[in-house]
């Protein structure tokens, strides 16, 4: 090969790298390992983690322990889905493009929106992407966000808005719900969008109709974060006139994976389609009239429009969106309703059962679907540590993000949590709270 090139050594191919920027000596990294050695090392690291199969987990707060059917991994492991690049050559990418089209259809139908793109990175950055669209669409510069929106979503919004100089105003959610009047008061003529989550971070179902009306009255767009797995039983955001619906797709057949990769979904009204971020698959025909799909409306995108693009996103989360589509097919039309009903009924049971425990009360009263907040009459961390010893992950301590709810605990009930497990949680929680109170009492 060197002869064909006409050089004497591979080193000669790097003659254009000036000496001053050449690495002298080898990288300070360990020597290479065999496949067996690498696997053993990784298995050892994996073994140091307490994962959702090795405890009974009530932890949610953005990602949830739902069952991932075997069919998902099986199909995703096909190299034809796993190893291609973005479908730049549609004639040899019809599989991936058709998946995108099916996925867009499913997301639009679930959310009640007109259109969906083919995925964005994940939930919080999806909301930030919606903010950028709202800024472009309205030419306004303020964002108003409910404090009942997941704290990581709010943080991501603020970081992104910092770049282009928009301000983010938070409205409190005193009773665990966003109050339409308080929201309305925070919106002014320069407000580009209002951000809500339904069910919100506390698990509670918001009064979307009133909130959307408050925002639209001042000409602001409404961005609603939704959880797709609750949309079998909850009226879709589109029915309330929401302009953009985004969210985290992990609950649709994706792994927990310590936080990613999953996917973000991004759906909107028809009016906004030409400002949407990301890839969109569209139907067309080939030279002989056969049905097919291509990436479409690419004049929105960075590779065509560069600095005038509506977003910078390029690589997104196609494989994870495929997992979502397989999962929705598996769950099916009946299953999406059934899983919602199962969750809401078990959650209602769990809520009542936990509220009856000595030293435990509900933090808020509003109706919930899969997650709810309780208040412990004991230090939350001490209680969680005790539950962990019992092999139970009790949930997410709300004090991490809401100092005013220092005693709050967010408990998630997926379809994988049985009545027996809920009863066990109630029993151990009662014991842990009692023990923690005693310790606190003794120290006092």
């Amino acid at each position: 090969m060197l002869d064909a090139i006409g050089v004497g050594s591979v080193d000669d191919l790097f003659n254009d790298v000036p000496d001053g920027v050449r690495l002298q000596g080898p990288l300070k990294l360990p020597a290479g390992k065999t496949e067996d050695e690498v696997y053993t090392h990784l298995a050892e690291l994996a073994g140091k983690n307490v994962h959702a199969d090795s405890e009974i987990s009530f932890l949610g707060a953005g990602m949830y322990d739902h069952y991932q059917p075997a069919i998902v991994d099986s199909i995703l492991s096909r190299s034809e889905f796993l190893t291609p690049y973005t479908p730049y050559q549609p004639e040899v990418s019809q599989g991936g493009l058709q998946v995108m089209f099916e996925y867009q259809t499913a997301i639009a139908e679930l959310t009640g929106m007109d259109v969906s793109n083919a995925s964005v990175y994940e939930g919080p950055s999806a909301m930030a992407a919606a903010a950028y669209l709202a800024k472009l669409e309205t030419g306004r510069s303020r964002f108003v966000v409910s404090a009942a929106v997941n704290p990581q979503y709010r943080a991501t919004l603020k970081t992104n808005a910092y770049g282009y100089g928009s301000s983010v105003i938070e409205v409190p959610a005193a009773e665990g719900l966003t109050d339409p009047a308080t929201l309305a008061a925070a919106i002014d003529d320069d407000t580009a969008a209002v951000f809500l989550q339904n069910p919100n971070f506390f698990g509670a179902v918001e009064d979307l109709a009133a909130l959307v009306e408050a925002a639209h009255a001042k000409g602001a767009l409404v961005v609603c974060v939704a959880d797709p797995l609750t949309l079998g039983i909850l009226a879709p955001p589109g029915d309330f006139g929401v302009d953009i619906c985004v969210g985290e797709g992990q609950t649709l057949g994706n792994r927990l994976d310590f936080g990613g990769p999953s996917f973000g979904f991004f759906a909107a009204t028809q009016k906004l389609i030409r400002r949407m971020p990301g890839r969109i698959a569209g139907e067309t025909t080939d030279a002989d009239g056969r049905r097919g799909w291509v990436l479409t409306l690419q004049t929105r995108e960075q590779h065509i429009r560069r600095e005038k693009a509506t977003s910078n996103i390029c690589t997104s989360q196609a494989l994870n969106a495929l997992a979502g589509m397989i999962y929705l097919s598996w769950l099916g039309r009946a299953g999406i309703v059934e899983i919602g009903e199962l969750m809401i009924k078990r959650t209602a049971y769990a809520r009542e059962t936990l509220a009856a425990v000595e030293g435990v009360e509900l933090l808020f009263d509003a109706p919930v679907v899969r997650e709810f907040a309780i208040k412990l009459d004991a230090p939350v961390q001490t209680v969680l540590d005790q539950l962990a010893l019992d092999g139970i992950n009790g949930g997410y301590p709300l004090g991490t993000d809401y100092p005013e709810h220092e005693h709050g605990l967010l408990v998630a009930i997926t379809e994988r949590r049985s009545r027996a497990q809920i009863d066990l949680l109630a029993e151990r929680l009662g014991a842990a709270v009692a023990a923690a109170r005693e310790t606190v009492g003794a120290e006092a």
Partner: protein
Amino acid sequence: MNPDAQKVTGAHVTETPMQAERATTIFEKSHPGRRAAALPALDVPDRDVSELLPAGAARARGPRMPEIAEPEIVRHYNRLSRRNFDLDSGFYPLGSCTMKHNPKLHERAAALPGFSRLHPLQPAERAQGALELMWNLERSLSEICGLPHVCLQPSAGSHGELSGLLLTKAYHEDRGEHRTKVLAPDTSHGTNPASVTMAGYETVKVATNERGGVDIDDLRAKADDSVACLMLTNPNTLGLFDENIEEIASIMHGVGATLYYDGANLNAVMGVSRPGDMGFDIVHVNLHKSFTQPHGGGGPGSGPIAVSDRIAPYLPVPRIAQKDGRFELNTDEPKSIGRMRGFQGNFGVFVRSYAYICSLGAEGLKAASETAVLNANYMLAKGREGRVGKYLPVEFDRTCKHEYVLSAAPAKKELNVKALDIAKRLLDFGYHPPTIYFPLLVDEAMMIEPTETETVETLDGFIEALDKILEEAERDPEFVQNAPYTTPVRRLDEAAAARNPVVTQDLDALA
């Protein structure tokens, strides 16, 4: 080579069996009452759902998801999979995308329940193995990039770019400086200027010189204290290493700007030259390129950033810290720009890339880059002769790095076939075409990146196929203009798709 490609000679074209199959969506395959999932039985008191929800909150009609049994779901997606071309089936020299082999061990490792079933909010003391892996990956990327601090959070390259620009903004503002412009060469990737706009800056283009590098005079003329940053890829998107990199860095640092390295082309220089040593302050690494995360048909990826000391205080949170042999996640960083996304990043990608780095080690990574560069130069040399050299000359003819850019302008002028036509005809030969029409600077660009995991026979085969296609074009340009012939569908009407966008299926029409 696709045997069918040989059969297609002249205007006689027969429909392949796959072409004869009409595409049917999973919604069209649905039948009322069919299903796959069985859910757990209700084991708590039954309740009326409408009682559990506020008035008006319940869904009146369930969403119309597919109604289909598991065997048919499997067949549907298997059938679709066969309508994709993929890296495991053939050569994929898509420039700028580093389509190297994805080792199979990585999928097995990523599926370990200790990783795949780990909740992102699991407290640090019960996720020590995951944090240790992230720490080790951070340290490895730090060494490879030659910069002390790494944050794994960004989700892809463009997300890393946006993060880097926000870091630049925070850095300057902290010093009381307000800067408005970001410089980027005209060869830069589209995500660069798009990220610049999203970060609230204005893009100023820098010209390319006759050697394919940054035009130093133009850079000097544009570099002043209104410039926040220069974004550069090195080697750049022409596949050329900028020999003036030290001078470029000193010009930018002289005006107080940061230097951003778009790491999409890191595969050329691992273990040879480090962006930190070149003078860059911020680097993103596309783990789905140089570090073997399978591309998934458009993601997932991951775009960690490595930064210098002066940028470190502003990095996104949470940050991993090591204390007395234990790992923790710190959010208490007062100068941090905050969060670019939820949780800790695309951890599943970290597992695969870390496995790759462990497998190759220091010497293996360097050998990978050397071989990638060797393969590209070999193809470049082979293609200097014959029809390829005549109709598809290289635009900047010097030693390339891991990729190079041809121009199909002579083919267009003399044979009346464009880069697009050649790309489409390559599909018939069983190859994925190069990246076309990028970088914009090169007329009728064809950007070829073979990567290090291809054999010399494959590289020869591809050059031969190009030669054959050009020969076909000499004889019958129309034949090449109408390619492809053997793919699952033939050339698709993109203009019609954009004019009248059909982006979801009309489910009412199916009812």
